């Protein structure tokens, strides 16, 4: 048996979620003795980053005949490595839309059981079992895979990425594969990078500050707090529908699902739609002038108060503290 990790990368750089996957794989390897195989589809692998996070081998697979960034191409590449290894019992992918789509196609090809949005994984009674919170944070479950291969899509920040003190001696293995017909059928007409803000990406951010109806159109207090915390800015559906901020900032079941280490909600009521997209946050702080707001039922720390006073004071206090 062995463990495989799909290493996701953008512009040649390993994404932070993949470092978390590698860290978890190494933790699982230390308790089970299984080797860890990192899989990189495409050119120019960041081998030193993968080695720093402890993979025993890095498999670099080139997919020929289709755009290498397409989900189906990534699946073609991954399947090639899994077939070559023949003994992978756990594949870790990030629980992003892209990661989940890879998991879905691979599950159909291999008969693997898939668990998405997992907060942890363990080997129990010979089955890989993943923990996950469901129904807008109201239930905790453990899902086990009956298949010889389990695919687990891990939520961002379920583990904290930690490089080794001394990098592993990672073996490099190269593969090539012809893209499947379904991958070859898709052509990329254009691909432009989205405008990047200087703030971290919402889905992957460790800290997220969210503004809701209560900000009444003014996100400046939210943005200033986000900047002092090094946080991403999010919003509720009301705030994006009102046009106070772009739709890409929407956190909720129909927007971005987040699982940051710290969530700060300003003027957020905590309606079930929104809760479903953020209930996996590890620490939830809420500021709202309505004591009956549902968010106070699940916040770790609630301030019933005026956000136009609390936010600037909090920002100033944190800034002073950081000197």
């Amino acid at each position, binding site marked *: 048996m062995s463990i495989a990790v799909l290493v996701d990368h953008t512009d040649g750089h390993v994404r932070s979620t993949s470092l978390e996957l590698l860290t978890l794989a190494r933790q699982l390897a230390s308790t089970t003795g299984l080797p860890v195989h990192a899989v990189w589809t495409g050119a120019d692998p960041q081998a030193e980053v993968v080695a720093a996070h402890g993979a025993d081998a890095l498999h670099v697979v080139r997919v020929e005949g289709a755009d290498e960034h397409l989900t189906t191409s990534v699946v073609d590449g991954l399947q090639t490595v899994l077939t070559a290894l023949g003994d992978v019992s756990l594949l870790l992918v990030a629980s992003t*839309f892209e990661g989940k789509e890879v998991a879905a196609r691979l*599950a*159909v090809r291999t008969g693997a059981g898939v668990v998405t949005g997992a907060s942890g994984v363990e080997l129990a009674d010979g089955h890989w079992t993943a923990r996950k919170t469901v129904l807008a944070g109201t239930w905790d479950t453990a*899902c086990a895979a*009956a298949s010889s291969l389990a695919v687990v899509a891990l939520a961002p920040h379920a583990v904290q990425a930690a490089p080794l003190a001394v990098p592993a001696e990672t073996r490099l293995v190269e593969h090539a594969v012809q893209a499947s017909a*379904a991958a070859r059928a898709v052509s990329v007409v254009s691909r432009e990078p989205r405008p990047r803000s200087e703030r971290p990406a919402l889905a992957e951010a460790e800290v997220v500050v969210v503004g809701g109806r209560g900000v009444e159109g003014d996100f400046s207090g939210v943005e200033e707090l986000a900047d002092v915390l090094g946080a991403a800015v999010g919003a509720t559906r009301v705030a994006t529908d009102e046009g106070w901020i772009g739709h890409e900032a929407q956190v909720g079941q129909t927007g971005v699902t987040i699982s940051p280490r710290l969530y700060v909600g300003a003027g957020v009521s905590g309606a079930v739609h929104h809760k479903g997209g953020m209930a996996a946050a590890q620490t939830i702080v809420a500021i709202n002038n309505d004591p009956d707001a549902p968010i106070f039922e699940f916040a770790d720390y609630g301030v019933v108060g005026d956000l136009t006073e609390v936010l600037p*004071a909090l920002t100033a206090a944190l800034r002073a503290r950081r000197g």
Partner: protein
Amino acid sequence: MRVVVCVKHVPDLQSARSLGEDGRLVRGGDDDTLNELDEDALEAGLRTAEAAGFGKDDGGEGHDVTVLTVGPAPAVEALRRGLAMGASTAVHVSDEALAGSDAIATARVLAAAVAKLHAEQPVDLVVAGMAALDGLTSLVPAALAEVLGWPQLTLADRIEVTDGLVTVRRETSTDVEVLTAPAPAVLSVTDQAFRARFPNFKGIVAARKKPVATWSLADLGVDPATVGSAGSATWVAQAAERPERSDRVLVTGDAETVPALVDYLSEKGFA
């Protein structure tokens, strides 16, 4: 043009949703409803078909928008809603052996139903929502594409079909892409671009007269062992309602509450 829209009947988000002893979602409550994100998928399907002539008195011939669902008897309500919004036909795959199907097993059944429709009259597009608001796995569209062997064009916010080529615009977490593939293709749509129309009285009345086909697994030639609990590669080993928290902090006040909050954030390592 022929469009198939996959829809799901789910417990209402506002209702008290729960898991049963088997770890499966409790379904069949009075509040169960058409998954909101599937309304966006249907809207996208209707608009794309309309652009090709669907629904026009003079040019509607040959165009069809079918809503398709897999689920127990009450799931027919999701199809009724889809028909009221303007779909022309509906297919309900219902079979006792389906109970406990996970997302991948469900995709296999949907694929068998799409294949049967495709054999009757070629399908150009299969459209699904970006997620179902119960399981939130987002696995079905890609799995469906894989089973069918069709290209996937997911998370679309614009769709165009010209001369048998399907073109979509999509935003990934890093890029804005325009992708194209020959029909038939499997699409999913975001909730941003296709704000669903509301069924009017005429639509609701007309929906009662529109046909709903009910297919069993035998009708689809699907082996019951490949679906339901037997055909699903995952099972829920434990399920527990989260206990009430006892360590919550609630304070009242404005700027004067900030020092305590800063201390709290500091203890947690954020300040």
